[in-house]
């Protein structure tokens, strides 16, 4: 196979890799400790000591961004995981029971969750259970579920009409085995693409929740809260707001490009042509 990777995929993966690497690196090393404040050295511009300057508490911006990447990525990954873990089985079930009662129940349940504005429910959850990164994950995860259920069902329905499924049925395989052994592998690419896009939306949602104070709580750095904290200082210390803003944009862009690129790359019709 000599097919070249699509350019969008390369750029997307590169951007994503930078932030994932930063997040992983922050687990073992950051240029400065993000817990220690140094008020005397606050609001410094970029220097050799602090490559991206310091914030209003004198914390190193680069370190903050690295740990912030970890927060964002962790929240988004777990939230997407919850969405997949719940949504995919529901979607498979609905597709297997196409036109039946379970299908109806799952799909109408989906519509119900879709009918609520996601961020409002997220705010409700954090208001009731208290703001924390965990509750943010829960809120985002719940809203990922119907997305995955729908994508899974749509993809699965198409696969169910294929001849090899008929063959599998004739050979006596049950619905569960067919779903797991034949349907799931055939819609995996769909799920990966959707997962990437949900991942980027999860990062945005985490930033949004943290921005309004309902996500990660201090002292855990979070891009959204860095933005919120620096709002009033934007006129004299713009790097405080611009840097986390750019980080959010770059990560979301990277993930979206990756998603698009993966779709192009993994599309079965393109693959068949090769």
């Amino acid at each position, binding site marked *: 196979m000599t097919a070249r990777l699509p350019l969008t995929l390369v750029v997307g993966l590169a951007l994503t890799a930078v932030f994932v690497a930063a997040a992983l690196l922050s687990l073992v090393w950051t240029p400065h400790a993000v*817990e*220690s*404040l140094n*008020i*005397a050295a*606050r609001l410094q511009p970029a220097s050799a000591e602090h490559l991206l300057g310091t914030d*209003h*508490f*004198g914390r190193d911006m680069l370190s903050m961004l690295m740990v912030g990447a970890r927060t964002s990525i962790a929240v988004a990954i777990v939230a997407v995981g919850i969405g997949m873990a719940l949504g995919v089985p529901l979607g498979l079930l609905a597709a297997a029971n196409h036109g039946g009662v379970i299908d109806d129940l799952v799909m109408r349940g989906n519509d119900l969750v879709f009918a609520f504005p996601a961020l409002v429910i997220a705010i409700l959850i954090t208001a009731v259970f*208290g*703001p924390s990164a965990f509750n943010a994950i829960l809120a985002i995860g719940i809203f990922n579920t119907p997305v995955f259920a729908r994508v899974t069902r749509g993809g699965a329905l198409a696969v169910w009409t294929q001849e090899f499924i008929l063959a599998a049925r004739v050979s006596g395989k049950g619905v569960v085995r067919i779903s797991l052994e034949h349907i799931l592998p055939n819609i995996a690419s769909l799920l990966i693409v959707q997962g990437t896009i949900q991942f980027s939306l999860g990062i945005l949602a985490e930033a949004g929740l943290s921005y309004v*104070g309902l996500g990660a*709580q*201090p*002292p855990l750095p979070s891009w959204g809260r860095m933005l919120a*904290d620096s*709002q*009033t*200082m934007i*006129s*004299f210390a713009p790097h405080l707001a611009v840097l986390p803003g750019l980080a959010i944009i770059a990560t979301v862009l990277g993930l979206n490009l990756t998603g698009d690129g993966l779709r192009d790359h993994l599309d079965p019709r393109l693959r068949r042509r090769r």
Partner: protein
Amino acid sequence: MKQLFSGPALATFAAAAVMNVSAVLAAQTSITVGMQLEPPNLDPTGGAAAAIDEVVYANVFEGLTRYQADGSVAPALAKSWTISDDGLVYTFSLHSGVKFHDGSAMDAEDVKFSLDRARAEDSTNAQKRLFTGIASVDAVDALTVKITLSNPDGGFITNLAWGDAVIVAPESIENAKTAPVGTGPFTFSRWVQGDRVELARNPDYWGDAVALEKATFKFISDPTAAFAAMMAGDIDAFPGYPAPETLPQFEADPRFRVIVGSTEGETILSTNNKAENLSDVRVRQAIAHAIDRQAIIDGAMFGYGTPIGTHFAPHHPDYVDLTGGSAHDPAKARALLKEAGAENLTLSLKLPPPSYARRGGEIIAAQLREVGIGTEIENLEWAQWLEQVFRGKDFDLTIVSHTEPMDIGIYANPDYYFQYDSAAFQGLIEDLKLATAPADRTRILQAAQKQIAGDYVNGYLFQLARTGVANARINGLWENAPTQANDLTGVSWSD
């Protein structure tokens, strides 16, 4: 025709426009004052929130006496008074011709009603202690009130100047929470909840007429929005401006004047004295030594604030500087924690919205971490804070500014939210009530300051500075905040 206006016509037009502008400027008699918090109601005799007084004190409601801008107490509805030789009987003579906004006359019966209502068993007054010394209130005639105390009280005239002691009318008190009726120079016109309260000049005011015809208090909780509203000119003055970090920009802008004064706000790391671990004075002392006040003032308030070592305003003549007793000393803090056997402590730190609390909380969390105390920060809205912390006492630590004047007496109440219960301190406050000689009061007040500092009741951080921004053409705003008030009676615009 290429030219829309011929030369002379254009000149006339321009002149007219200029005249128009100056006419508007000269006629400016309305003001929009920004406030960070919206009052929960508008009855200063029925709520503890500072925001109530910040709208209605001296503007809508008046008491027998009142605070002035410099912190001194002056006669208000009471023209004058005499004090009996034993210090027990105060006879006030009232101004004549004073009317409530609903047209009814203010007389001695209203004074009796107001004070009896405030000190009643079932009173919801937030500062009942102001009135506990009153034995009886008698209306001698329409304009004379006799107040008898059970013990001499040197601070009684000052007590009557509080917003909680304003004179209300029995006819209108029922609806005072949403439609306050007082005797002040402004009448209440409208409250758009969540947005603003509007006041209008009282044409029948008994005292000197005010310059402003209309005053609007606009509530903007978000510091960024406050900055934008101020810059855009939507707000004329923001006396409790919530974003000190942007003050240098206003200072550099000739359109604005930055007003930095002092407040009665002792900003403290309030400590639940009944909480597990925190009931041990060594742990509280360790927390006190872990705190670096200057770092908090610089980091949270951008340098605006004065360090305090006890619950007392530094600009008060009886203040004792006790900051040395709780100086920043992490090694000592660690030793004390070890001694108390509380080395792996994790405490909840519940923070209300103001930036002194939110930013200060992050700094304190970092400072506590240095001595080995972990914190769980929880950011709360004011309603949640009042519910959980102030009423529910469900907290270990919180940061709040106590903005009432001379409020060291709150430490004598064992049910107050930080639950400090000391017989010695309660005795001091009892003595204070009886003391009338200035020297005695000074001695007791200083002993009281030392008592709470020595018991490390709370972490004493700094005296909140009053950082305000106003349009440069506004005169007469209070520089300091001797009480919670935005007194607009002396405010006017210059051309």
